[in-house]
């Protein structure tokens, strides 16, 4: 469904992405993991066309996304830090997005809005919102248009435990609808019951792309967090030997 072919991205001299090849299929729920600054957000932004790769191409449903914009109809994106026009209210932002996406009212998925009780906050200005409420608005927008692909960048950061559970349940329901879901998170324990695939990135490269089962078998650990810790330890040892 999404195919990345030899993607590299340079910011000046810094190589944020280095020759990345990945293929994601529908029905997968994918965790994108790696230390800070390893290129996760850059990778996500390249898929969304917000960052233009220096080399390589990205295909969505077999079509090159370069100079194409219509494929974004099929993506719901929840950014790491939701940035919205500060002088608009939540209601205005939601209405504007509905207007731009041109999806009829009866096809909207307003479940997240109901779960997070957004209706009571419609008159609040974006500039007055807390980080958590902002995150809820982002989630609401990502799920609202019932997209085939969900890209969630640190979806649970800033949310209270109740909302985290509600969001996780929603993600599971969407996963059951045979959608492609890409999640980045640092809270690995949350990902355990969600993901089927794991992509581990390190310094702009894909260190591995495995199914969760395979990963657990390879490392002999029962939990994702333990398995990743295992790998990171080994990595450090290797680097130590090289030095």
């Amino acid at each position, binding site marked *: 469904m999404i195919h990345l072919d030899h993607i590299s991205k340079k910011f000046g001299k810094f190589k944020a992405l280095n020759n990345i090849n990945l293929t994601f299929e529908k029905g997968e729920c994918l965790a994108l993991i790696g230390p800070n600054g390893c290129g996760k957000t850059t990778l996500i932004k390249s898929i*969304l*066309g917000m960052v*233009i790769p220096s080399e390589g191409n990205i295909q969505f449903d077999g079509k090159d996304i370069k100079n194409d*914009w219509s494929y974004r109809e099929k993506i719901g994106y929840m950014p790491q830090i939701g940035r919205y*026009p500060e002088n608009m209210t939540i209601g205005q932002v939601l209405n504007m997005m509905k207007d731009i996406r041109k999806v009829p009212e009866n096809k909207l998925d307003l479940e997240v809005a109901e779960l997070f009780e957004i209706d009571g906050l419609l008159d609040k200005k974006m500039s007055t919102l807390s980080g958590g409420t902002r995150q809820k608005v982002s989630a609401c927008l990502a799920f609202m248009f019932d997209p085939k692909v969900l890209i969630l960048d640190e979806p649970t950061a800033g949310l209270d435990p109740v909302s985290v559970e509600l969001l996780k349940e929603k993600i599971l329901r969407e996963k059951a609808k045979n959608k492609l879901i890409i999640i980045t998170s640092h809270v690995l324990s949350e990902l355990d019951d969600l993901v089927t695939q794991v992509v581990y990135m390190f310094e702009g490269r894909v260190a591995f792309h495995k199914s969760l089962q395979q990963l657990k078998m390879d490392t002999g650990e029962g939990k994702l967090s333990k398995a990743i810790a295992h790998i990171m330890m080994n990595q450090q040892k290797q680097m130590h030997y090289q030095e």
Partner: protein
Amino acid sequence: MNKMIKYILADILKNKIVIAYTLVLLVLSFSIFTFEDNATKGVLSLLNLLLFIVPLVSVIFSTIYLYNSSEFIELLVSQPLKRKSIWMSMFFGLASALCLAFLIGVGIPVLLFAAFTPGFILVGCGLILSIIFVSIALWAGVRIRDKAKGIGLAIMLWLYFALLFDALVLFMLFQFADYPIEKGMVAVSMLNPIDISRILVLLQVDISAMMGYTGAIFRNFFGTGMGMGITALVLLLWTLIPVWFSVRYFKTKDL
């Protein structure tokens, strides 16, 4: 694209600075026309003020607005929208808001007090200048990521067009006073839209007779249909070229 223009325009028109700009223009125009008993003199006084204010407000307001809507632009880019139409909506939104402010602030007084050719040329030039400086602001705003630097560049550009360019031209005039440079002056004036506007209005009033031989050359050039056609084309290029460059850059910009 129409929807985006609608949202942007509604947002700008709510902005207090645009409302203040309209009111300042209104007060200025009304006071000048009531103080001057002669409408032509009124147009000339207003011209000198507008040639400073309109470019300044257009370029600086647009740059600041652009930086303040960076979140909005980022949000739109992740949606199924063409980058080109996002950027062009910004351009049309800003240009039409500032033109509307100018039409109300200057157009109405001119209609009431100076409804003759120089007055209308003045309004036309003000509108074109508004659009040109929005276009220049878009170019400055897209190239520079840092807000303070971007606004600095916008101010520098305004300073160049409003003051420095004239100083340079004057300097050249004195240096080459012994040579026949009058025709060259017409070409040089095309490099600055503010100068073009000034000449266009001045030539409509009898004052051009006082500008000597250069004035006569200008009259010969701008008085003809051909000259006016070229001038209109140059002004059109001044609006299109910066915005075209900015669209080209925005299409591949990383957000």
